[in-house]
């Protein structure tokens, strides 16, 4: 099996305070730590487990600056074989669709049976890349995948998609395909020291838009369908009310509202 896994480096916002930066289009990342997108970590593990069962190679791809090498190398340390990083100013400001175009261009040059991505990114949460990538590559795709079983002929896979309430929807999908992996599908491993040392020696191929045969206008902000305008904190409006005061006051107000609306 030739497996490709796409990984994104994202800020860890789970346990930190997040502030919008001066541009209004991003958050202040200066005090955040970064790491692999959570779903992608499971995607890497899934690819490596399939390789370990059935043989083949795992190619890790990431779009972004040099800092992304950190997450690429960790995926290599866990069992990835090859790595490509897509770096070009032309990629800046791209939406999920533009990112998928760059990834698709890189993947088209490879032999692949399954392309893994995370189901969605922790930072922007668009969940666009796996579906867009499948369409651009002209192969079937499924997202929120929580179970993958390669069928005996090696040409199809049985895939379980997670629905509301943890229900799984099973489908048979032809290979090659793109699978957007959901957290919890497996137990991601820890990199062994041996793996880390090997990963440090591996080469990461860097590719620009031109290397991929892409015109700068096709990717990045100019190649996007959606352009980020600005971030705002929730506005106090008709649907939202922010209670002010000390805990006693706010609790009393909250209780009154719940009672009034008949919610308790």
């Amino acid at each position, binding site marked *: 099996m030739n497996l490709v896994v796409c990984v994104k480096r994202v800020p860890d916002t789970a346990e930190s305070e997040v502030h919008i930066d001066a541009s209004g289009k991003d958050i202040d990342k200066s005090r955040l730590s970064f790491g692999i997108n959570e779903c992608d970590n499971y995607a890497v593990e899934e690819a490596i487990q399939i390789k370990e069962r059935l043989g083949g190679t795992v190619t890790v791809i990431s779009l972004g600056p040099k800092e992304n090498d950190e997450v690429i190398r*960790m995926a290599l340390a866990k069992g990835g074989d090859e790595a490509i990083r897509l770096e070009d100013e032309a990629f800046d400001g791209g939406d999920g669709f533009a990112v998928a175009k760059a990834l698709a261009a890189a993947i088209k040059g490879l032999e692949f049976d399954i392309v893994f991505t995370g189901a969605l990114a922790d930072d922007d949460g668009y969940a666009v890349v796996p579906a867009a990538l499948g369409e651009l590559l002209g192969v079937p795709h499924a997202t929120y995948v929580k179970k993958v079983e390669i069928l005996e002929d090696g040409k199809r896979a049985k895939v379980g998609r997670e629905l509301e309430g943890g229900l799984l929807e099973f489908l048979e999908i032809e290979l090659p395909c793109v699978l957007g992996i959901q957290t919890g599908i497996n137990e991601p491993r820890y990199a062994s020291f041996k793996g880390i040392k090997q990963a440090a020696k591996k080469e990461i191929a860097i590719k620009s838009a031109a290397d991929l045969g892409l015109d700068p206008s096709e990717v990045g902000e100019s190649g996007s369908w959606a352009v980020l305008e600005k971030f705002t904190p929730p506005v106090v409006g008709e649907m939202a009310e922010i209670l002010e005061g000390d805990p006693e006051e706010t609790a009393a107000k909250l209780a009154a509202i719940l009672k009034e609306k008949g919610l308790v």
Partner: protein
Amino acid sequence: MTVGLFFTEEHEMLRKSIREFAEKELAPHAEEWEEQGGFPDWVFTRMGELGYLGLHYPEEYGGGGGDYFCNIVLAEELARSGSGSVNMAVAVQVGMATPPILAFGTEEQKQKYLVPAIKGEKIACLGITEPNAGSDVASIQTYAEKVPGGWKVNGNKIFITNGARAHFMTLLARTEKTKGYKGMSVFLVDTDTPGFVVNRKLDKVGMRASDTAEIFFEDMFIPEDALLGEEGRGFYNIMWELQGERLIGAAAAIGGARLTLESVIEYTKERVQFGKPICKNQAIAHRIADLATKIEAAQSLVYICAWKFDHGEYPVKEISMAKLMAAQVAFEVADEALQFMGGYGYMMEYPVQRAWRDARLGRIGGGTDEIMREIIATTMGLYA
């Protein structure tokens, strides 16, 4: 990232992996192991599989072939388990009981003890301290008498970490009925040898998830090839490796202090008294600033010593300073953290009390504060 002066990208990847392992696999059990007074053997085997027990050992023995800083990273990040006990047990395994095997062992001894210790299949302990010989190692009395085919050992060791569960002990015993530094030798002893008796597991103030044993040797026969290194050179060989142990202990203490300070800072930001978070009182904020400064200073000293050690220098004075400072800073941080939490800090339901109890050992184990000062003063020539 601290890549640069001392750490490479490899170290940082290792750091990340060990931290993740410690936070996900160990930290959730820290309290349970504390209550049970022990942690399961899988911690050793799992860490062995991941290569974390042999980071600095040569690849030919199953090690990682890394440098000394790998073990510093291990000690710092295992502190993230929140269990000083696990960190201490692992430090004994990788940094205290096994380095003499690599340094002085025969090929057979390396295969029999070092290889399985690196895999986490054999747990190691180090037997130096005796009831009448703590700080004064030269006064140990355990005696290995030369008999046909080997030695017959009689004596008694106390405060032996991993002692109740270990598969083998790196034992310091007297092989000549002399006194003082000469006439001691090191042995590798299987703990299932007849006459190796674990008398009792000791009940401690802190580090409760680490087992500490009192052990008796009753006419214990060990074969010729149990001797590790040269006969009569035991004291010097053990004292040599104590330097590495002290640095690892210092790194672990600093790792623990960092974790404790980070969590109490969160507490002081959230705890409101007199209408504002308590960290907004200069009385608190300045003390946090001092503690952070001391951690940074102690850590820098540890790194510089580790660098020298890794480059073949033997900076006994500076390592003693690093151990002294790290142990004191770690306890001070824990004590202040407990203070910043007021009455809650004094309650068993908050982990700070455990950090406080665990950190207290640092000033005693691996050489007391006073003994560190004694070494520093001596190497400064004050007693000459």
